């Protein structure tokens, strides 16, 4: 009887222990089994990718005709950010995303007295851009062919609030709306140190980080003769992107 009792206790302990081990195996990362010389490599399970955030800076000179010469070739810069929401993943191709972006630029130059070249202060124009963007992130090369490049064509609508003024001149502000296009090529940085990229995902949920350059243009202000044409035929920006 005692033997049976001892056997049943031992069996219970073993069962509980094996359940504990099984539970341990079910954790996200298998840990080395204590008491053995074997260990397992932690398995990486990427978190889901839902967003892309881009922080950017680049040149921007509005296509305002000859009067833009007042800014002496000032190229801004345009600084901004964009957040894209991954709407639909197209298998073995990429992601269709919709996002919002904003940018800010300011141009300044000398204000002069009429009929003179004497500078009496500065004249300036600032632009705050807000955009809605549709983007197709073609990441198949990076994910299936091991070429760490992502190509992203974009199209969107820009809304801008502008202000101009300066030394003694008129101070005017207004809104303007237009279309926007862009073509981006991004270098996914995971290949530099894949384990670091995985750690970044584990710790922060950032799946990929990218360096990108984007060629873009904007046709802002064509919808009304009362809107200031603050678009630019073509320009560029560069920055850092994070997919998370």
């Amino acid at each position, binding site marked *: 009887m005692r033997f049976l009792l001892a056997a049943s206790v031992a069996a219970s302990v073993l069962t509980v222990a094996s359940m504990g081990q099984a539970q341990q195996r079910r954790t996200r990362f298998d840990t080395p089994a204590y008491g053995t010389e074997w260990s397992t490599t932690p398995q990486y399970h990427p978190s889901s990718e839902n967003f892309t955030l881009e922080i950017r800076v680049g040149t921007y000179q509005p296509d305002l005709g000859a*009067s833009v010469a007042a800014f002496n070739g000032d190229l801004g810069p345009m600084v901004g950010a964009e957040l894209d929401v991954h709407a639909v993943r197209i298998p073995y191709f990429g992601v269709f995303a919709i996002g919002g972006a904003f940018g800010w630029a300011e141009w300044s130059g000398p204000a002069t007295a009429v009929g003179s070249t004497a500078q009496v202060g500065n*004249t300036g*124009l600032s632009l705050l851009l807000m955009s809605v963007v549709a983007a197709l992130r073609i990441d198949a090369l990076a994910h299936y062919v091991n070429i760490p490049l992502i190509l992203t064509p974009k*199209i969107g609508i820009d809304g801008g609030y502008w202000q101009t*003024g300066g030394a*003694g001149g008129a101070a005017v*502000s207004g809104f303007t709306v237009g279309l926007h296009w862009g073509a981006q090529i991004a270098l996914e940085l995971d290949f530099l140190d894949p384990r670091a990229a995985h750690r970044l995902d584990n710790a922060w949920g950032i799946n990929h980080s990218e360096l990108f350059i984007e060629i873009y243009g904007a046709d802002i202000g064509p*919808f*009304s003769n009362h809107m200031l044409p603050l678009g630019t035929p073509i320009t560029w920006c560069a920055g850092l992107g994070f997919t998370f």
Partner: protein
Amino acid sequence: MEHTLLTTPPMHRSRACSVFAFLAALALPSTAFALSPTVGAFGTGNHSAGNSNLVMTPIGASECSVAIPLTFSGLTASTTMRYVDIWWASSASAGCQTNTTRSSTTSPVCHYVTSVAYTTGPNVTLTTLTASTLFGGCTTDQRTFYFFDTTTMMENSMTYTSYWTLDVAVDATVPSAPQITGTPAGDTQLQIVWNATSFTDLGVSGRVNVYAGGTGCGGSTGDGGGADAGTTTGTLVAGGMAPSTPLATLSAASPAVLQTSLLGWAAGSYGETQSIAIAVVDTAGNVSPLSNVVCATHVQVTGFWEQYCAEHGMTLAQCTHNYSSCSVGVPGRRTDLGAVGVGAIALGLLFARRKIVRRR
């Protein structure tokens, strides 16, 4: 010059006192001195360096003879004659509260200043002290003054556990005259370019005062005239004493931007002239001599907006009305194409969304 925090010239006292009371309540723990309007009180708190060392903003040369009202609350309530003993040292860490430090005759660090008698405690305001009294003159210096409640003058045989300290600096150095570069011209603003970088003691509270002389300058005589600009015959004298009332007080940065409405210039009327000069005011309130006198001119200014409007064949008023916020216009030919494009994108987004919803 308005002193902040602790002591003020009488004319600003009530306003500054309320500010001080508020700041003191924020800055000091409740167990420290019960601070009343100006310096502090002996009370029951023990002084320790740092928690009740009070600091005054620098005193300028013109304020050396202005009384510094110091109010003490918590002096000993006594009907017999008592004294507020005043000593000074070069720093707050000198330790003048100890008798050995005060009584040392070899290389003394604590110096006796004076004693002010009082008979009715506990709240006493000393109104006879000036920077000249405390410093024995009006030369640039910085001292920490110790205040002790005592029964005998020049007491140096006992160590105090309760006392006040007050850091005061006298800045008797008047800034040099600034120099305006060029002749300011503008429409609604004048940008006065001056040698701000040559001044090192303007700090954050330094200012530049702008003074206006006569109108119609620019000729060969008078204010801002040709070779004799700012001569003794003008209202403004280059290098002379600044008038008592400035036209405007601006931050001590170059260019100083003056609104021309202060000169009485009406919008749209150009060609008016006005002689102007500036003086800098340092952190202690010392006002420099006047700068050179220049002739400012009311001119029409052209900048980006004026050029853009002219390029598009519009007057400034028409152009501003046309492009400024909330104006609505009839779409042109180019507009129609753009509107179609925007509409197509909007429709596309709608269809895409519909598809996504259906898939779910």
